């Protein structure tokens, strides 16, 4: 049976309670009659022979690009850059898609007699990956061949010797990227596309860029002008990256882009209930839910987090395309929509969402309050095309425990941002003006970013800027079950139950509001008509 498309349910009296993520736990909520629940399309069928598909893509590139074997020759300098730990979510079961693609690229490079090959993790300002994470992404064969020889490196956006300034765009934006990548005869970028924002020129222009370059589009103004940043036709973030990408190409950087699409099969069979529509739950699903939820309710959050972060997704590749950046990305974006697009009629007064334990920036870590805000208002809110799911002045209700808890290794600057900056103001523009530079240039944060596994000092600002469009658009944000102190620090309201949250929302949107719930996992994009 072919996978079913997304579905918008109108809740009636026979509708069973709806499952909500709640961090490392679950909640069941009975929504008011007439509410809408949006379910994602079912996972698309994967490629039957991914290796053959990758080979075919490399040999039959899209756009104005020669086949990869024709671009490889002895004596050349080849750099392979690839997406970091932030993709996919949750991390996929072995073999990771990056391993599958890069092994094929290396096979072709070996056949062509290319000796000078280097692999770079396109970190941007993210934390460095650990050895186990790299082994998982690349496989032991690649890791053991390159890492011990110093040929597997992680992009360092603060190493002046490893960066090169390529010039300014016509809008005066600095383009400064990884020197090795820029000076290679061929830069192969291996991308995983999980959301429509990923890939395209953003891969190199962001993933291999410096703070000096990133600040031009990672700012509140860009985010407020992107409606949304998941819709490339209305995304200022996209436009900025495209300007930079063109400058990179004009500078002579030869990019061979490889983009892959995954299906949205995000959890292993034990968690099948997460992705099923509640009324279709069978006995197994109900038992699995009851077992998991009761066990998690009795498990300390720390251990529940460890359990969830050990879960690997059974994502499978649905397509792979390679060649010229823009031609490749056009196909990739279409494929993202095929997997994730759901047509939704009209906006809603209240948008509710259950937030999971994971976001792109806390793999193997804690979803701290800033990341909670970013996941809900930055990501889920922006997963639309056309217009936001929630009307202007509407309310977003998120379900998450939002603990006042941070990982000091991964998120040291987040702690200070939360304590020092959000206690002063939550306005993204004021924050950018008053605090960004001091965090971005703080030597201690830079040291931790370069030598440890810390996100860059400016990263929590970017997470907050990610929320800028939603903060400007919404009348209120309510977090159900959140830690009151942490939620208030974010400038949001806290409710102990969904019923309370709806009562609070009534004060803002009126007494007969419409409610729409986005049922995740898996993620999806709403095409709001």
């Amino acid at each position, binding site marked *: 049976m072919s996978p079913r498309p997304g579905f918008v349910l109108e809740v009636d009296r026979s*509708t069973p*309670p709806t499952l909500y993520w709640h961090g490392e736990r679950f909640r069941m909520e009975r929504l008011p009659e007439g509410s809408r629940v949006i379910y994602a399309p079912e996972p698309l069928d994967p490629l039957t022979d991914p290796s053959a598909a990758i080979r075919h893509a490399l040999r039959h590139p899209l756009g104005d690009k020669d086949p990869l074997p024709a671009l490889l020759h002895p004596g050349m300098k080849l750099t392979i850059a690839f997406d970091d730990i932030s993709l996919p979510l949750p991390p996929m079961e072995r073999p990771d898609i990056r391993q599958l693609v890069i092994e094929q690229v290396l096979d072709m490079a070996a056949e062509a007699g290319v000796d000078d090959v280097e692999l770079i993790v396109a970190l941007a300002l993210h934390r460095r990956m650990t050895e186990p994470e790299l082994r998982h992404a690349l496989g032991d064969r690649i890791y053991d061949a390159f890492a011990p020889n110093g040929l597997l490196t992680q992009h360092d956006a603060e190493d002046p010797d490893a960066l090169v300034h390529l010039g300014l765009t016509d809008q005066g934006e600095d383009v400064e990227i990884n020197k090795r990548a820029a000076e290679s005869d061929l830069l192969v970028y291996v991308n995983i596309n999980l959301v429509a924002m990923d890939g395209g020129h953003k891969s190199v222009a962001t993933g291999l860029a410096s703070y000096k370059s990133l600040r031009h589009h990672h700012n509140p103004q860009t985010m407020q002008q992107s409606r949304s940043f998941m819709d490339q036709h209305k995304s200022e973030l996209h436009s900025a990256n495209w300007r930079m990408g063109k400058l990179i190409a004009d500078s002579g950087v030869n990019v061979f882009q490889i983009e892959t699409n995954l299906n949205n099969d995000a959890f292993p069979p034990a968690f099948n209930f997460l992705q099923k529509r509640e009324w279709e739950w069978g006995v197994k699903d109900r038992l699995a839910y009851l077992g998991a939820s009761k066990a998690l309710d009795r498990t300390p959050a720390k251990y529940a987090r460890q359990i969830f972060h050990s879960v690997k997704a059974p994502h499978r590749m649905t397509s792979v395309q390679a060649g010229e950046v823009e031609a490749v990305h056009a196909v990739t974006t279409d494929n993202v929509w095929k997997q994730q697009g759901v047509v939704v009629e009209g906006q809603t007064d209240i948008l509710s969402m259950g937030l999971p334990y994971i976001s792109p920036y806390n793999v193997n870590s804690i979803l701290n309050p800033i990341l909670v805000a970013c996941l809900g208002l930055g990501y889920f809110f922006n997963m639309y095309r056309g217009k936001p799911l929630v009307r202007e002045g509407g309310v977003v209700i998120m379900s998450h425990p939002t603990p006042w808890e941070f990982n000091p290794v991964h998120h040291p600057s987040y702690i200070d941002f939360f304590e020092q900056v959000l206690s002063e103001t939550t306005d993204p523009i004021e924050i950018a003006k008053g605090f960004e530079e001091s965090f971005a240039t703080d030597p201690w944060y830079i040291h931790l970013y370069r030598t440890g596994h810390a996100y860059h000092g400016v990263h929590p600002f970017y997470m907050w800027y990610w929320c800028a469009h939603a903060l400007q658009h919404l009348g209120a944000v309510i977090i159900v079950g959140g830690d009151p102190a942490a939620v208030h620090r974010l400038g949001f309201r806290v409710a102990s139950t*969904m019923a309370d949250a709806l009562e609070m929302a009534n004060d803002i949107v009126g007494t007969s509001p419409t409610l729409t719930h986005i049922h995740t996992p898996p993620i999806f994009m709403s095409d709001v008509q």
Partner: protein
Amino acid sequence: MTPRHGSSRSLLKTRAVRADAALGTNGHRRVAALKRYSPTGIASRAGRRRFPLAAPSWPENVPRPAPDHDLGVDYDTTWSRKYPVRLARAMVLDNVTRPLARVIASPLIRGDEYLTDVGAPVIFAANHTSHIDTPLLMSCLPLRFRHRTVVAAAADYFFDRRWKAGFFAFSLAAIPIERNKVNRRSAQLATDLVADGWNLIIFPEGGRSPDGWGQTFRGGAAYLSVKTNRPVVPVHLEGTGNVLPKGSKGIRRTRTTVTFGAPLWPEEGEDARRFGLRIESAVATLADETITDWWTARKRAVMGTTPPLQGPDVARWRRSWALPETTPTHSGSDGIEWPRRSD
């Protein structure tokens, strides 16, 4: 308990107040209505539901998946009309179903005199609010109709499992009807059975009312009548929603009224769509008669002011709020039971 007769004014008043509340003209009522709608109230009902311990209920507006090949509309019910099965069903119907229906639903039968002169087969077209509608109506049919009647039942609901198909085919002489799309097989089966002399009970709304109000009638009953040139007897069932409303798991004892209307024949040149509207209008008049009286209902029918079965076109909670009282009593002011009960 609200008096059944001689109290139509008070009933109308109650209804008007509720309608006001629904329209927001009565502040006090409006607050009450909002409380009924409030998520707290809805959440508190969750305690009664046992999902995920129990199997989930199926949302009303989500079509059920296609059943197995020889289930659904493909299920063969021929066996259920064979003589030994009919005999067994008649025994169950007369000795189990009817006494149970009388105990649980205490049916007051009105208008059965219309059936005196009409010859079989006929098509009974009734409104539908509860699973009890079918056995109740079956048990209220006069004897000459009762044991030669089949029931049009939703193929996707009553025939999606083998045990369900067998149970309903036996106990109610149910035949599978495709209600979500036109299906030649199910339409032909019903036509053949009527042509073969079987009476047919059909619920033109296509399913039970989700909120107590009626739904727009579909064209099945009219189509069959036009095709077989047999009359349609409009039937209104009042109070069954209180016995076993949709979504409820328990049965409550209450009184019900089964009102038969005059048989309707398709007029010369009248197509099924227009005839269907006439059937719906006739059932709406019977509904009006149940909450007012025969004369008022007749006058309103002639003037075209009969309240529609579907209720007001407003938000769900307001529709719910505007529902009329549905607990009829069967005795007049002097305590003498009238009209007569079913024998």
